[in-house]
């Protein structure tokens, strides 16, 4: 499929998903009411009673879902290019857990819904993600080679360790237990405009790297050595990419907890359609990740309505089998 047409289709699909996300839920809102509410909000006219659902509840939630999906998908694109490994994903590599621990530490140490907390949680998540990344790569690069098995094993080992540490922290932070547990469940239940504004800048900042280095990401697929020979300053580039990836993961994790497999599935599905070229893979994955997450969240809050299930369960139910399929295919392909 031609990239331009795919982008147009994806953009349309994202708009449709956003509209559906706002319209559907415990109370259905008609498209006319949505546009009316948006118009009144933008012009500052007096609100009608139903507007609160659209403007204060549903809209920040779908936008946050879109941002989280875009962050995770972009991070997946970055990691998969860097490790030349189709199975790399922030969740599987343990980076999400690292971000989680960082966030939990901050949550445990602070109280109340203060602005400081909104800033500190993402910062803690970023620190956790970056440290975990460094640790996993260090562990996996035995004798300077990063092979799939050691990368996955290191990621899993670190994941478990960090999960245990997270539980350990929770035992000590009894007063904050409910806030932490609520956050840990993984989900967009507590979505608010504050969250949206907290992670939007992180998303934009993190996206600079993938957007500005699509060609270099392509070259990384040929291997570190070849990329260097063709003019990529490999060591520096890796650091920059890992930092950007950690930032994107931290953004997602700090508002939605641990949501798995979006970073794995999205780039794959896009690659199947558009091929491995990052000039199309990056923007298409951002759009597709956003769509996927908005839809997953929609499923999470409507399928058992009025009970909401954590969106992480939805993505894991879809992503787990997908991961197994990939793993089997990769093994068979050898």
């Amino acid at each position, binding site marked *: 499929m031609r990239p331009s047409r795919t982008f147009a289709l994806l953009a349309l699909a994202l708009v449709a998903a956003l509209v559906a996300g706002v319209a559907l839920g415990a109370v259905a809102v008609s498209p006319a009411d949505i546009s009316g509410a948006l118009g009144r909000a933008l012009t500052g006219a007096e609100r009608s009673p139903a507007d609160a659902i659209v403007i204060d509840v549903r809209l920040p939630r779908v936008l946050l879902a879109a941002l989280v999906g875009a962050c995770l998908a972009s991070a997946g694109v970055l990691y998969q290019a860097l490790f*030349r490994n189709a199975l790399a994903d922030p969740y599987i590599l343990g980076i999400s857990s690292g971000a989680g621990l960082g966030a939990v530490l901050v949550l445990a140490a602070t109280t109340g819904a203060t602005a400081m907390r909104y800033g500190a949680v993402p910062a803690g998540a970023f620190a956790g993600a970056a440290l975990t990344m460094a640790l996993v790569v260090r562990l996996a690069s035995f004798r300077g080679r990063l092979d799939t098995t050691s990368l996955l094993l290191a990621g899993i080992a670190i994941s478990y360790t960090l999960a245990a540490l997270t539980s350990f922290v929770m035992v000590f932070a009894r007063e904050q237990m409910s806030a932490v547990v609520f956050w840990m469940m993984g989900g967009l239940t507590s979505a608010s405009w504050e969250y949206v504004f907290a992670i939007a800048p992180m998303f934009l900042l993190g996206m600079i790297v993938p957007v*500005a*280095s699509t*060609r*270099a990401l*392509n*070259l990384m*697929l*040929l*291997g570190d*050595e*070849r990329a*260097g*020979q*063709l*003019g*990529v*300053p*490999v060591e520096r580039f890796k650091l920059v990419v890992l930092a950007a990836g950690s930032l994107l993961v931290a953004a997602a994790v700090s508002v939605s907890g641990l949501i798995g497999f979006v970073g794995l599935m999205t780039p794959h599905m896009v690659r199947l359609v558009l*091929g*491995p*070229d990052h000039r199309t893979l990056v923007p298409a994955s951002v759009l597709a990740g956003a769509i996927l997450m908005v839809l997953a969240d929609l499923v999470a809050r409507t399928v058992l309505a009025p009970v909401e299930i954590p969106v992480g369960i939805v993505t894991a139910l879809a992503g787990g089998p997908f991961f197994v399929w990939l793993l089997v295919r990769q093994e068979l392909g050898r």
Partner: protein
Amino acid sequence: MNAAAARPTPAPDPAAPALVWRDAAVGYGDHTVLRGVDLAIGRGEFVGLVGPNGAGKSTLLRAVTGEAALLGGWLGVCGVPAAELDAPRRARLVGVVPQALPEPFSFTAREFVLMGRHSRLGRFERADAAHTAIAERAMELTDTLRLAAERVDTLSGGDLQRLTLAQALAQEPRVLLLDEPTSHLDLNHRLQVLDLVRELADDGMAVLGVFHDLDLAARYSDRLAVVADGRVPVCGPPRDVITPSLLRDVFAVRAVVGTDAVSGSVTVTPVLREPVGSAPASGPEVFVIGGSGAAADLMRRLSLAGFRVSTGALNVGDIDQAVADVLGLQRVDLAPFEEMGESDERRVRELAARADVRVVCDVPFGRANVGNLRAVVEAGGPLVLAGEVSAERDFAGGEALALLERAAAQGARMVGGTGDVLAVVEQLAAAATGEGPRAR
């Protein structure tokens, strides 16, 4: 970028040699692989790097690409110290065809070659028609343009290797580094690629290539540099560098160095690996009469089997003489086209008499060499006779035929080819000495 602007590195100097190592030490981390390297490669020069596995040939190339560290001395690329070249600047000067093929993702061949333009494109610049034309020209040169729309992960190793060369050429480099550039190629494409590289060198590119095939290296290179024992001890024209003694010292191979009939370049025909019998061979002694290559393989195999081998008189320049020389066999050398004299025959007779078994290979005899036959027949004892006893072998006015008939009458064992000779020699030697050859 800012650092580069603050302290500009010198611009590449077109007049400077493309690559210069001066007393350079190269390695990885603390581990020095090569030391004391002095080597300069000028524009338009094709230098071949040869040497045994693990000697450091690839490491020498990696010093240029920055994958191995320069631990001491100086390395200049087009007049610029290698250490001051960042990755994009280096990529504009130096193209590489690595030994290991890049992992192929599902890019098309055209996209793959266009990746060579990376260092020539701005961050957000797209490859326009001019860049694409350069990439397609590189594909044309490497005979890969017809693959342009194919996905590289569906191509053969040979196609991928030529595409990698095309990718390197798309960089428009001044220096081309080749690490076993033809390892995945068939005969036809091997010639095509090397002819192309030779042409590029003639047009001004500096080429440094690692080769395992000494014949190819000698044929295409202006000079050969030898890498051995962590040094580059020799660099010069192929004919001066490739000598039996170098092959013995560096590759531990005894080889005949000859001249390629077509290109006139040096050829190497390996005969035996060193060491040939770590102790002096002490098995039964076999005396062989050959000529024009009739005995070459037999002498080689007898030596390998642990026999002591000696030969009759041979002219210098004869292939059997060259092989006997390489094997270090006792023999009688004649000048080219010289006929055997009396003293030659006397010495041949001594060698023949001393041996436990004598072999006459399937060679014709004329005035020049019938002395060999006379000596061996008169020496008596176990004798193996290869080929027919016929007048067709006699160019010595009947004497040779008479000698062959006499040998047959004395009970010489008549055999066909070399393999049969070897088996019969082993039987006879065991009978003559009560022991077989020393097992090696």
